[in-house]
């Protein structure tokens, strides 16, 4: 049984601990209030050895006693625990933030100094709405940390490949300095943070389901889509490394090689209709090609899923999204022209890169029409 802790100064939110727990997944999360000074509480948590720690952001809103010892937020507590883990890597554990949506927006999002301390940030509302997904992810974090701790015994130059579960001959895909730096980290939470930040949470080396569907040119509502993903699994396209049981991803380079083998050409050199014809003929499926949101055609050259509407999108009918940090092995976020035209992208907290504002304005003022 994995034992976790949820710390919150709001007693009435103790039900969150139940939502974070799961008998089927062998996960029991207990509720606790921050009724001690910061260092004392940190010490107690370390002694408790939680498989996972969940913290509400504001731990200081309700005094927990006469002396009002809880004059701290989640950040300093997490920092204290992370410092300990740097000295004692084998005792490291995942820390997640679980707070009300409004507090995350109002207090956590603007606090740039604490973001890297948490493996995931969940709203209390989403934890109750999508319990199964969150429990799956939390258990994956627990297992992943244990995998990372074991990997510290492996030679540094092989650690990342081992954690990502990739073959020796695929190693060259990961020879970027910004990835190799992961091999040198001392603490599991540093390794976990970079694997999420650079590999799992971003398109590039790995693709999420919407981007796989876009690269294959398939209509996301097509019958046989599940059967197609079974075929991808049979061809070992799936990511099987650390945290893969919580986050479904597929290797971009394996899809590319798979396309060349299956269709004789890279998927990127076939239009969606041709890609789907190849897949249907190869596997006797009844997939249909995705229709472009801009041209309404199915013989389109899709390269990725729009970051706003998640639909298959062509490079030529999209603009760059603003993103402050990006590495060369990451696929840059793009927004389809239809989302630019309708303004949908703004609702998804996306911004257009200033370099492409020239084109975006022409779309928005009707000079460029579909």
């Amino acid at each position, binding site marked *: 049984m994995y034992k976790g802790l949820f710390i919150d100064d709001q007693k009435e939110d103790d039900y969150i601990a139940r939502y974070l727990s799961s008998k089927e997944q062998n996960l029991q999360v207990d509720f606790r209030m921050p009724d001690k000074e910061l260092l004392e509480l940190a010490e107690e948590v370390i002694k408790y050895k939680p498989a996972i720690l969940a913290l509400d952001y504001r731990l200081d809103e309700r005094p927990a006693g006469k002396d009002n010892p809880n004059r701290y937020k989640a950040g300093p507590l997490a920092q204290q625990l992370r410092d300990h883990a740097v000295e004692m890597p084998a005792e490291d554990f995942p820390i997640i933030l679980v707070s009300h949506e409004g507090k995350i927006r109002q207090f956590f999002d603007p606090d740039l100094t604490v973001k890297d301390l948490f493996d995931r940030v969940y709203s209390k509302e989403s934890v109750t709405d999508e319990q199964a997904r969150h429990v799956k992810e939390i258990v994956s974090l627990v297992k992943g940390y244990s995998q990372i701790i074991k990997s510290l015994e492996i030679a540094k130059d092989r650690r990342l490949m081992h954690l990502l579960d990739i073959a020796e*001959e*695929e*190693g*060259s*895909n990961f*020879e970027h300095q910004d990835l190799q730096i992961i091999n040198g980290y001392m603490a599991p939470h540093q390794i976990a943070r970079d694997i999420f930040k650079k590999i799992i949470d971003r398109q*590039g080396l790995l693709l999420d389901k919407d981007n796989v569907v876009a690269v294959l040119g398939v209509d996301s509502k097509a019958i046989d889509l599940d059967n197609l993903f079974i075929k991808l699994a049979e061809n070992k396209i799936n990511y099987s490394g650390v945290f893969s049981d919580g986050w479904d991803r597929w290797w*971009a*380079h394996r899809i*590319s090689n798979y396309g*060349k083998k299956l269709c004789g050409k*890279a*998927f*990127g*050199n*076939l*239009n969606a209709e*041709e890609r789907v014809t190849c897949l249907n003929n190869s596997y006797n499926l009844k997939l249909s090609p995705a229709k*472009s949101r801009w*041209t309404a*055609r199915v*013989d*389109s*050259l*899709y*390269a990725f899923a729009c970051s706003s509407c998640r639909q298959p999108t*062509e*490079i*030529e*009918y999209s603009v*760059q999204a603003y993103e402050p940090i*990006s590495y*060369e*092995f*990451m*696929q*840059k976020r*793009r927004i389809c022209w239809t989302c630019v035209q309708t303004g949908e992208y703004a609702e998804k907290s996306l911004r257009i*890169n200033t*370099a492409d504002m*020239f*084109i975006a304005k*022409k779309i928005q003022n009707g000079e*460029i029409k579909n």
Partner: protein
Amino acid sequence: MAIPKAKDMGDALQYLTQFLTVNDLVQCDAWSATSDARQTLLSSRENKSWTYTITSSNPIIFKTILHDKIGSEIIPRIYTDITLDESKLEQEGTPFANIISVLEIRSIEGNVLVRFHIDRANAGQAGPLFHLQYGGHSPGSDRDRQDFELREPRWAHPPLDIILLCEVVVANFYTATWSEIKRQKGWIELVSMSQQLCLEPYFNNIQKHVDKKDSSLLNSLWAIST
């Protein structure tokens, strides 16, 4: 001639992408456009027979420029599919088992204004073994509107890989940058590598034919002997 190892070509594509990005010549998707090609080459390591693809779905897209004469913005984009077979050099005088390098100029609305490609003739195709051709088949959704039915003439032309094609684009459309970078040692080294690969065997063959004087040069460059 020296055929570069796969990993050296992968490093060259890495350098090319960085160079184009630093000099503000391309849209920032250039890393994503060359990503698969770089990875494929780097994983082939010491091999001197290699292949790489930059696809038409995710090409290298240059910065939008205002073309004075036509009075509107244009966007050059290039993509390629290259297969090198070391054994072909001795057999056929060229290491290129396959090469197609495409330059498209598009309007900002996405319409193809012109398309050129340089490729190796298909089996049985009448024309120079390596040729430059206007138009050709578009793999994308513009096919119906923008396919160019008239395929001829095919002009005898040396093969150009993605590096040499980049130079053509920069020299023609980004003249101010071109005047700066063409003297830079790094750029010259990069281009020299591709020149040795693409141009040296081609022009050696031409020199041999010119010296022999037994047929016209065009006939000697023709894919099917007539």
